[in-house]
């Protein structure tokens, strides 16, 4: 599943990347495979996404988010009204 497909409030594990060059930059910013990534909100026009990962809050464009592969955490899917 891709990062941008998460629902607001959903948490997931990062499993990998589909673009090698971008993956390094994403990892340097804290998006590390195995880490929990939490979709906090979307910007007023739907793009970019605000996520919480490795203790940081990052703004990621939808076009970048499609490169991040995630696996939703099974039990705790909290939906916060957008």
């Amino acid at each position, binding site marked *: 599943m891709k990062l941008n497909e998460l629902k607001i409030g959903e948490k997931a594990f990062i499993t990998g990347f589909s673009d090698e060059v971008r993956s390094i930059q994403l990892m340097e910013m*804290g998006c590390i495979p195995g880490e929990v990534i939490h979709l906090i909100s979307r910007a007023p026009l739907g793009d970019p996404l*605000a996520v919480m990962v490795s203790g940081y*809050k*990052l*703004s990621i*464009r939808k076009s970048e988010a499609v490169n991040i592969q995630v696996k939703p955490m099974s039990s705790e899917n909290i939906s916060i009204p957008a």
Partner: protein
Amino acid sequence: MVATEVRKIALVGNPNSGKTSLFNALTGLRQKVANYPGVTVDVKKGTAKHNGQSYNIIDLPGTYSIYPKTDDERIVYDVLLNQDHPDHPDGVIVVADGSNLKRNLLFCSQIIDLGIPVIIALTMHDILEKEDVKLDVNALSEKMGVPVIPINPRKLTGVDELKSNLEKEFKNRPEPIYQSVPLDPNYLVEGRKLFPGATDYQLMLYATGADNENGLPQDAKDKIQALNKKYGINFSALQGKETLDRYRIIDDIIKSSIDDSRRKPQQTTEKLDRILTHRVSGPIILIAVLFVIFQSVFALAEYPMMWVESGTAFVSEFLRGNLPGGWATNLLVEGLVAGLGGIIVFIPQIAILFGFLTILEDTGYMSRISYITDRVMKSVGLSGKSVIPMMSGLACAIPAIMATRSIENWRNRLVTILVTPFMTCAARLPVYALLISVGIPNIKYFGFINLQGIVLLVMYLLGIAMSMFIAFVLKYFIKVRNNSIYVMELPIYRAPRWRNVLVTMYERSKIFVVEAGKVIMIISVILWLLASYGPADIGLANAGSEPAPTTEMTETTGASKELKSSFAGYLGRAIEPVIAPIGFDWKMGIAVITSFAAREVFVGTMATIYSVDATDENFQSVRQAMMNDMDDSGNKVYSLATVLSLLVFYAFAMQCMSTLAVVKRETKTWKWPIVQFIYMTAIAYVASFATFQLFSL
């Protein structure tokens, strides 16, 4: 291990980690901006003293990793990797944000692996305490192999301990953290022949950086490239593996030093963001914030402006009354004092604007502005990263254009550079304020909304709109080449550092006065010469007669006649046919010409023209003079149509030599500044024409 004598220290760390606060705490007032040409962030150098020992400290740009993505980050790479670099340090202090250790330790571990002595300065541990997380500093220090000293630069705790550690604890060559660099061992052997004494990681950095400009001599780079070819090095694969490996090591280190089993994360930032980045309330609040800023700039500055105006008048009177008459006094009063007064009067507005911008950045709200506007920027082919440089253009295009260095994408960077000068910069403020107070009536709606303030707001919006429009147009002229990511950090909200705000307000005003001031002074003097002497004075034809003044009215017109027969008058009249269709007369013609050096010169020019105009008895302030100016048929020179046309012209014309110089430096060619000059002036003329004709109906 022998402690090396430490003289030069570099300060590095992630952005937002408290590095600058530590630098200020260590160096106090003994700091200056280093000469790194063309860099956006101020690379500061300073001295720290402890126990009779002096240390030179350089504050390098904040970065997440030693691998540079921007020109600023390249400085860190160059200074630390290249032992021959003049600023290459004897030791490094890595500032690490303790509340988010994992990512900060990535960078720490890279620096340690360079083989330079390291001390880790740990900040933000007050946040850790608030969140009930226990960090064992000694365990961390042991695992990292270097001293870890908790500090709070704002309260100055730990800084003394840090200073006393500078001597003792800087040991030679810390143990590398990342032991198994993913390079063929034979590569390492051959590499060490080229660079004896280099650590494994240094060799790896040389390998991955060989294709870029990294300050190494060309023959060294060639040899590395040959080695790379021989061993089939794939940079991104290497970097990727390194990053993952490092995080694994760091995970272990953190597990054994931190107990966050009872962590209670801070809620404040989240709660604020829920409102500030909300789909509806977010943009509304953003617009409200901008509105408050612009109304404040105009209204709050009113009183200081009046004081400066009367102060200037007072000084002029005093000098006239006490100095002997003659050309030197005239030069002083009419050229220098008048010109200078016209500039100083706008310091309040500039200071207030910069104050607000600093507050926005310090609190963290600036990045939310980028976040909210990113989608809109994307539609004109830019990203949220262009918002901050463009917003800085609202203060001054020069640092704004330099700030574009943080935009990794060259195409976006170029476009941002080209459109930023349309943003209403502080230099236009004096011009707008003067013209608005002359030509727009001072009416209040509903008791508090000022018509003049509204017009100012409209002028600001006009600049912003034009820059967006041109960016959009350039989408089709300068194609996109996508390569780096648009990920941005949204830091936690913080109270602004008020001392920082005040220092910035002072420094920026100073820069404006000193740097613009130089140009203005020279031009004021030249102008005074041009306006006081004419062809008649050097024996050319058409000697202008000097009518004896009888009444007040005639006095002014008499002096005005004198002006018309000066060099300036001839020049202004020469271009009159070109500028008449846009509603300008010859005086404005002169001002427009001199403004091509710097916009705010317009004010100084007007001051000089009108005070040269007035006789000894009456010193009129510029505003009054302009409002009273009549043309030969008795109509107000500064009619609504003319004032609006002037406003529009100054909104769009390229009238700043310093901007062109910076654009040339950043784009490394004269092509773009010339292109910029031509299209901006063309747009200004067309827009002025339309405005004037429209409002003359």
